[in-house]
């Protein structure tokens, strides 16, 4: 018996070889099979076959314990699309959300559901505006909550690439919905955004980039570092060389294969320091830091220990969720390390040096 929760071709791809185990942050920390990608795919199969019922405690727990970082994907020789499976899983399992999940996610998804609500958010904080010089370049994505939380990021992006257009009526890309059990709505929002913003869309959020490229096609989406690298003319280092680390965006790296570009851009303006865990999730993982604060903090703590031991001045993020996670953690520790977005770092150097 098959319940049509999952796309069969996606689910059958896995041959349970276990190559994914060492790449999975939750498996590495627990050593428990059901907390690995292979184990979770087994749970999905049991759910699909009706061997485990809806509401099974382990199934529910694992669907939320998984960070959704997709670190299992690049190491999978069989090419299992784990991220897509997770979205289908949560779409099914999280329909009957638990109380705490409903209280936290409900308002968040509601807010990002309509463009006008986000526009109100944008009035509170001053994100980038389409100025009179705005050319006919690609469209800059403001991000749903990014525009309010980190308005400086989009302003920095425009400073770096003045050709970028800014449409003030744009909505959310739907990644938030797709990752949190509303897959259809997540795709719908991405399609609406694709219609509103014609041509190439440039984003400062790795998570949005990966979701948009899944729905709209890879060709229409550029994450900022990718766009800047394509445009050429890397900024030069100014003055003293600061030691700078990078926190990869999981979906940018594992979903889109973009990781060399931000490193090259950082290396042009400072001394780039590769953290051993640069490619590992920081525990932000979209809404994870809110839904599972303790697990999230445990993962973040390992990262912060490493950052402080590495003696870096700055850590750079390429996704607003990671940026918020790192800033919060560093502030709580009163660390001397500062976290900022790649766009901010480059714009700073740009100001010091004048030209790109």
């Amino acid at each position, binding site marked *: 018996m098959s319940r049509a929760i999952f796309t069969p071709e996606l689910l059958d791809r*896995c041959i349970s070889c276990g190559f994914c185990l060492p790449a999975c942050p939750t498996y590495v920390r627990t050593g428990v099979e059901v907390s690995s990608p292979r184990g979770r795919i087994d749970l999905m199969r049991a759910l699909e076959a009706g061997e485990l019922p809806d509401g099974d405690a382990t199934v529910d727990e694992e669907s939320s314990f998984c960070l959704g970082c997709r670190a299992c994907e690049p190491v999978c020789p*069989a090419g299992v699309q784990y991220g897509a499976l997770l979205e289908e899983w949560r779409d099914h399992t999280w329909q009957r959300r638990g109380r705490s999940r409903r209280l936290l996610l409900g308002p968040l998804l509601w807010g990002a559901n309509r463009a006008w609500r986000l526009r109100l958010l944008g009035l509170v904080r001053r994100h980038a505006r389409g100025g009179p010089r705005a050319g006919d370049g690609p469209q800059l994505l403001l991000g749903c909550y990014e525009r309010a939380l980190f308005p400086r990021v989009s302003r920095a992006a425009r400073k770096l690439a003045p050709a970028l257009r800014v449409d003030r009526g744009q909505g959310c890309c739907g990644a938030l919905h797709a990752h949190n059990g509303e897959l259809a709505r997540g795709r719908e929002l991405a399609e609406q955004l694709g219609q509103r913003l014609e041509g190439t869309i440039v984003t400062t959020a790795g998570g949005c980039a990966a979701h948009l490229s899944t729905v709209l096609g890879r060709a229409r989406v550029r994450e900022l570092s990718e766009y800047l690298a394509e445009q050429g003319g890397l900024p030069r280092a100014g003055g003293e060389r600061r030691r700078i680390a990078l926190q990869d965006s999981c979906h940018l790296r594992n979903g889109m294969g973009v990781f060399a570009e931000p490193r090259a851009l950082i290396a042009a303006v400072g001394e780039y320091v590769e953290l051993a865990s640069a490619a590992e999730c920081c525990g932000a993982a979209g809404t994870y830091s809110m839904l599972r604060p303790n697990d999230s903090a445990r993962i973040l703590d390992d990262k912060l220990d490493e950052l402080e031991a590495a003696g870096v001045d700055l850590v750079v993020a390429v996704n607003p969720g990671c940026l918020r996670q790192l800033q919060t953690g560093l502030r709580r520790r009163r660390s001397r390390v500062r976290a900022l977005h790649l766009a901010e770092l480059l714009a700073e150097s740009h100001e010091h040096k004048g030209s790109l």
Partner: protein
Amino acid sequence: MLAVASELGLPVIPRGAGSNLSAGTIADRGGIMLTLTRMDRLLEIDLENLVAVCQPGVTNAALAAAAAGHGLLYPPDPGSRTTSTIGGNVAENAGGLRGLKYGVTRDYLLGCEAVLATGEVIRAGGKLVKEVAGYDLLRLLCGSEGTLAVLTELTLRLVPAPESSGLGLAYFPSLAAAGRAVSRVLRGGVLPATLEFLDAVCIETVEDFAAVGLRRDAGAVLIFGQDGGPEGVQRDVARIAEACEAEGAIEVNVARDAAEGERILDARRAALPSLSRLGRVTLLEDATVPRSEIAAMVERIEAAGARHGLRIGTFGHAGDGNLHPTIVLPDPDDAEAVERAHRAFDEIFQAAIDLGGTITGEHGVGLAKLSFLERRHGADHVALLRRIKHAFDPQGILNPGKLGS
């Protein structure tokens, strides 16, 4: 736990990482799945005796890395080495890419602690190169697939790491041609550290995953490597390359450096799972023949595939005669196709036996090959296996329904 399980007659299936290539860790009779991955302490690297002592859950890669930190090498390196555990490697007598020159897991097992089904604890061997006090239980436990005892501590031989290594690729119009080149290389008096091949189907899927720049238009690629002193390595790599050219290689390349060589070997290790890209069902086999028969075996595999209209991707350890023909089917519900696949494997096993080979070289018997065991060994041999099993596990609780039952 084992004493209680024995009393209750409850099956216990010990397992490591569960790569499960021969369905050896399937709990088809229920019971307790005894996963040993969290017994993962590396207890000691003894530089004077050149041994490592570890718990069963240490991964092969972790042991190899720890040994490398002391300038030592743990040679067995199964494709699954990043996840598979030493306990699992010993229980399956795992091979790997270095088998030809360095041998397999049993050649490195010096000692172990094991818990019998009755709960009794035994030790066999130790930090000893020589030991003849009694039957060689180590060799018996190695490859016993969790049917005789639960391995709880292992002592393994390490060797000094080779000074340097070199790797090359030779492309051939067909897998059989690559097989003939293998024979020529080995006749030439060189014992390569690595001699692996992939057919055209595997080249395609491996390249899709790893993008290491393999030629997609070739019928097969032979990956060859040597390690040792730099001069010897250079000389041997050149000699192997010559032998390949003499056997009609389309192109021969030598890796620029060790890092490039390692990327190619990692790609080769991903051959099996990457085949899963081609269809929804992947059926893997492990037929092994004397290496002089490798070209003949390859031809028999291809003939079986053609006869049954199946897509077979073959890769394997060409140097030690160990082949992994893998059938990929598009639809798991197509019973007729599954039946054809089983018929093809039946013929492939028979061909291996006819050529003086065996039904499994390194993946184990498990459930998958149990029905072929008697054909390989005859009734008397299989009866003896049962009596051995009974001596270790009178209640028949350890991994029941597999080897020895």
